[in-house]
């Protein structure tokens, strides 16, 4: 038996648990191995020391203290009890709960950090869209203003003859307006150009043509009112609204005389002057008496010729209404033809440009 095996039997040897034959072998080895003998001596000493360890007495007053503690625990609210218990829970129970809580925290953190930017970007997108829309509106308004200016210039230079082609061109784009309802903004601009630009160049345009144009536009609008998106309608309004009222160019020799005559004429036909800006007059006349007024005005003209320009605007209600409002009312009118028929207050706004010759 080697030293290792002998040393493994020290406990059994001291507790007399070895079989006699085993004990004999171990004792024989020990007698011939001083190293193992020394080891056994140390082992015996350790065991002797261990067995000499006295028991300590329980602390004095242990029971009363315990009873006091138990009484306090009984008084403790259930909340306090459960809180205290948490610390005494075994780790095997506490760890999974803590892990679950950690996972929940991580998920929330990820949700807040990763999901929020997406929502923010969505908001940004929304802002951009709205800003781009307003930008588009702005550009459209600018475009319309330019068109009006160009129109004025065209009127001032007063080209003589209308071009039938232009008149014809002016008609077809109107049905195209129905595309405008669902189409993107750029095509709307294009349509606006098509419809506005040629007409502005046209000096004379018949009421019928204009009227049909309006009617066509109104019809189209009234066809699918449900499908029209509000925003797009607003856009369309902003494009179409600044269309000027009817314009007449009056060529006179004496300015003062011409102005007084014009005022008289307006009053005579039950109308009134709205504004006066140099040679530009804005008058409101009852629609019924407008053709008569027009004839009389033509009589005043030196060249016996009035220049009628652009679209006719039939305005119901307030004379001072903004262009946008007028257009809205046109829309309403197209939707409610019955109301239009009964409207006796219908008036026509006419812009009169005096040109001294």
């Amino acid at each position, binding site marked *: 038996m080697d030293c290792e095996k002998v040393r493994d039997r020290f406990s*059994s040897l001291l507790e007399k648990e070895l079989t006699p034959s085993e004990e004999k072998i171990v004792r024989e080895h020990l007698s011939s191995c001083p190293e193992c003998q020394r080891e056994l001596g140390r082992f015996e000493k350790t065991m002797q*020391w261990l067995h000499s360890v006295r028991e300590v007495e329980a602390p004095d007053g*242990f*029971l009363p203290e315990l009873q006091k503690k138990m009484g306090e625990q009984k008084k403790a609210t259930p909340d306090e009890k459960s809180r205290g218990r948490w610390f005494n829970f075994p*780790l095997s129970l506490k760890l999974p709960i803590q892990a679950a809580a950690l996972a929940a925290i991580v998920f929330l953190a990820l949700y807040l950090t990763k999901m929020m930017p997406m929502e923010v970007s969505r908001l940004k997108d929304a802002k951009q869209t709205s800003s781009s829309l307003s930008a588009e509106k702005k550009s459209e308004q600018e475009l319309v203003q330019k068109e009006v200016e160009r129109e004025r210039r065209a009127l001032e230079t007063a080209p003589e003859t209308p071009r039938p082609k232009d008149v014809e061109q002016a008609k077809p784009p109107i049905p195209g307006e129905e595309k405008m309802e669902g189409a993107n903004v750029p095509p709307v601009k294009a349509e606006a150009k098509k419809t506005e630009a040629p007409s502005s160049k046209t000096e004379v345009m018949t009421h019928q043509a204009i009227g049909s144009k309006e009617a066509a536009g109104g019809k189209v609008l009234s066809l699918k009112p449900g499908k029209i998106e509000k925003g797009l309608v607003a856009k369309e309004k902003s494009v179409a609204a600044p269309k000027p009222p009817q314009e007449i160019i009056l060529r006179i020799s004496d300015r003062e005389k011409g102005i007084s005559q014009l005022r008289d004429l307006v009053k005579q036909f039950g109308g009134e002057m709205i504004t006066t800006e140099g040679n530009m007059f804005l008058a409101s006349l009852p629609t019924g008496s407008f053709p008569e007024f027009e004839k009389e005005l033509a009589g005043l003209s030196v060249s016996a010729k009035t220049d009628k320009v652009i679209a006719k605007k039939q305005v119901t209600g307030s004379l001072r209404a903004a262009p946008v409002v007028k257009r809205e009312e046109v829309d309403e009118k197209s939707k409610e033809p019955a109301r239009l028929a009964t409207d006796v207050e219908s008036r026509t706004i006419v812009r009169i440009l005096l040109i001294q010759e």
Partner: protein
Amino acid sequence: MKTSPKIQKEVIESCKAGDEKAFAEIVLHKQKKVFNIAYRMLGSLEEAKDLTQEVFISVFESIKDLKEEIKFDAWLTQITLNHCRNRWKYLKRRQYFNSDSLDDPIETEDGNMPKAIVDPSGNPETIYEKKMIQQFIQRALLKLKEDQRELIVLRDLQGFSYEEMGELLGLPGGTIKSKLHRARMDLKEVLERSAH
């Protein structure tokens, strides 16, 4: 087996019924045993006292679940060992024993004692030396692995039989014996290392 006197079956039954007097009797009978196991396992009188209180509170709360009154001692020892294990982990996490060294002054019932180096192969001890040896052993026990300390405490300090230990620890007698021998040899090594 250096065990406290057996408690009568009737006392346990009364305690089960919630009789506080019966519970007090149980405490008085068993407090020394529980306190000693706790002290040898944790090496601190204060911790041992606190743990002993917890053990008896657990006993009072769960004695109604004890089916066989005859196994009360084993049941109580099991509760004590479980509390010791939990408390040991708790203290270890808080590095309670980090500064612990065999060279440090030793906490005893009579106060702190200076470090004493004693050669296990040395000469007959005086009373003073005997006291030092006891604390020296206590320090060395704390240097052992927890399961090794349990074996030595149960067998060599508390006098449990291998059969009782096998039941308590859920191990066969042969395994208990070999493990216990390994623990004793390790304790011898610890003592020798600290003596030189």
